Structure formats: C-alpha cells, structure tokens
C-alpha cells in the first residue's frame, strides 16, 4: 500500500510475460507437429468425442435434436465471434468502471463521475491526455 506505483509496474510486466507465454502455447501447435499427433485439422474434441461414442455404441441414436442449428459454418463462426465480442467488451467495460470507481485511472473523478479535484478543469484534461 505504501508503494502502489512499483506494484503496478511489476504486475504489468508480469502480465505481459504471462500473455507472451500464453501466445506461445497457442501458437506453437500451429507451427510444429507433435509426435503421435492424431490429426492436423484442429477438429473440435467435441466431435472427436461423438466419433468415439459412435464406435463404443454403434446403435446409439441421439434421442433429441438441437432445436435450432446455425445455418452453416459461417453463421456458427459469427455467433461464436459475437459471443467473444460481447464477453470481451463486458470484461473491458467492467474493468474500466471498476478501476474508475476507485479513482485509479481517472484520479480526479469520483465514483459517480463527479469532480473531486479542486482544480476540476485539469482533471478532465488529465483523463483525455
């Protein structure tokens, strides 16, 4: 609490490093093949599980159909992308509001957008700049 600036800097670098490792984990399989790898089409494990069900129980028929299917791959991709966009937007919005409400990113403005600083005009300049 006595050294918030140092803590923030450290965490930011820490976070960037972690994101880089993550990018590596995701990017690696696109570049190299693993020994004994099943396929390289990046099919979903969900469909692989269904294929396994079909071998284990060839007679099994799904007794309910989904009530609605996205018409085609493109629409399915769109809907998944939409879900990610809504979610990521929500995360970003909440993070911003969250910090803002504690006067972290916008130090001159209090929880409800009121100006707290005595030199109120400068607070806004700080926010935009």
């Amino acid at each position: 609490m006595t050294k918030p600036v140092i803590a923030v800097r450290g965490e930011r670098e820490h976070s960037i490093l972690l994101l880089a490792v993550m990018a590596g984990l995701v990017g690696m399989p696109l570049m190299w093949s693993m020994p004994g790898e099943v396929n390289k089409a990046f099919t979903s494990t969900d469909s692989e599980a269904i294929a396994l069900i079909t071998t284990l129980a060839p007679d099994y028929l799904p007794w309910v159909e989904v009530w609605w299917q996205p018409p085609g791959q493109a629409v399915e991709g769109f809907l998944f992308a939409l879900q990610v966009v809504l979610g990521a937007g929500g995360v970003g919005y909440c993070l911003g509001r969250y910090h803002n409400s504690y006067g972290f990113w916008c130090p001159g403005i209090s929880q409800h957008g009121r100006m707290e600083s005595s030199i109120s005009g400068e607070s806004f300049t700080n926010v935009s700049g």
Partner: protein
Amino acid sequence: MHIMEGYLPAGHAVLWTVVATPFVIHGTQRLLKLLAGQPQAKLLLAAAGAYTLVLSALKIPSVTGSSSHPTGTGLGTLLFGPPVMAVMGTIVLVFQALLLAHGGLTTLGANVFSMAVAGPWVAWGVFRLGRWLGRVALFLAVVAGTLVTYGVTAVQLALAFPDPQSGVVGAVIKFLVVFGPTQIPLALSEGLLTVVMMNALTASGRANRGDLALLKGRGRQ
C-alpha cells in the same frame, strides 16, 4: 466439452440434472445474498460472467492437432466462491445450448455438473490448499478446475457408453485420451490468462483490494 444434445441416454440426463440442481439453487441463494449485501460486487460479478462467456466460446488449437475451449469458470470461482459460479456457469451453458447449438438442454445437467460445479469446487479446494503460494495458487487452481471439468465429462460419457470389452474404466481412459492431451495446454493458457485478469483487477493496489476478500484471506461473502 459440452456434451451435445441427445448424447446422454434419458436416464443419465435426468440423473445429472437431479445431481446438479441443488448446487444451482444453493448458488442462486448465495448470489442473491451477495447482491443484497454487497451491491458493489455487481461489477466484478459481471466481469467474471463476461470472462466465462469469452473463454467458453474460444476454440483454441492445441498441440494434438485438435482444438477445444477452456471453461473460464476459474476467475469467478476465486472471486466469489463455487456456489455463485454454479449459477453463472449455468447461464452461459443455457445461452450456448439455445443460441449456438453447443451443448443441449437434455445434457444441461451433466454439463452444469462438470463445468459449473465440479471444476469450480476443485479450483476452490486447490486454491485454499495452496494459498500460501500466492499467484501460483491462482494458476494451479484454474488449471486443476479446467482439467477436472474435462475429467468429469469423460466419466459422464463413459458411464453412458461403457466400452464393450474393458467396461466403464476402459471407456473413461478412451474419453480422457480424446480430451486430455488437447486440454492440458489450454488449461495452462487459461491459468496464465486468469492470473493476468487478477493482476488487472488488483492493479490499483488500493481500496479495491478490499473487495477481493478471498485474495486477502478474509474468507468469502
């Protein structure tokens, strides 16, 4: 990892729904209590829900040459505890079942149990055991939670479709082989990303740390 619509026999579907329901009811009570007692938690709650939405929609390529998606339930679990996450996970699963044809209503109970009950409780347990490790405990908890989610899915499928030769155990192994190698790198990625999210949440290093009661070791609301 969501079991597709119709891919659990009716008996199993009913059974898993019965098993999952009390957790969701309990979670709803906890959630309402949380919102009544700490209205300021809404924002964090929404962030955790949105995070689950993102991660459970991201199909990520993995080293096995297949792709799968993480669960995203770890963050909410560590912020609010497993009961609250049971509700939020259920909302995400219903959304995906109805609008994305991903998962299904008959398999909802089984999917809720694996993703919104078993995973979060294991993540919670791992975090409590390893709390002294700090951020590393966060990472381990999320990784364990995601892997357990897929492990439970494998068991659920194996119980419904035992191997003709090697029985349920053989089928568990077969389903784990389908999910496991693909899921391990994704679980590691999710663990890292969740630590990044926690860093972002605690970035101000000031008053808002008080909200993250769990991280401060004050127990949960």
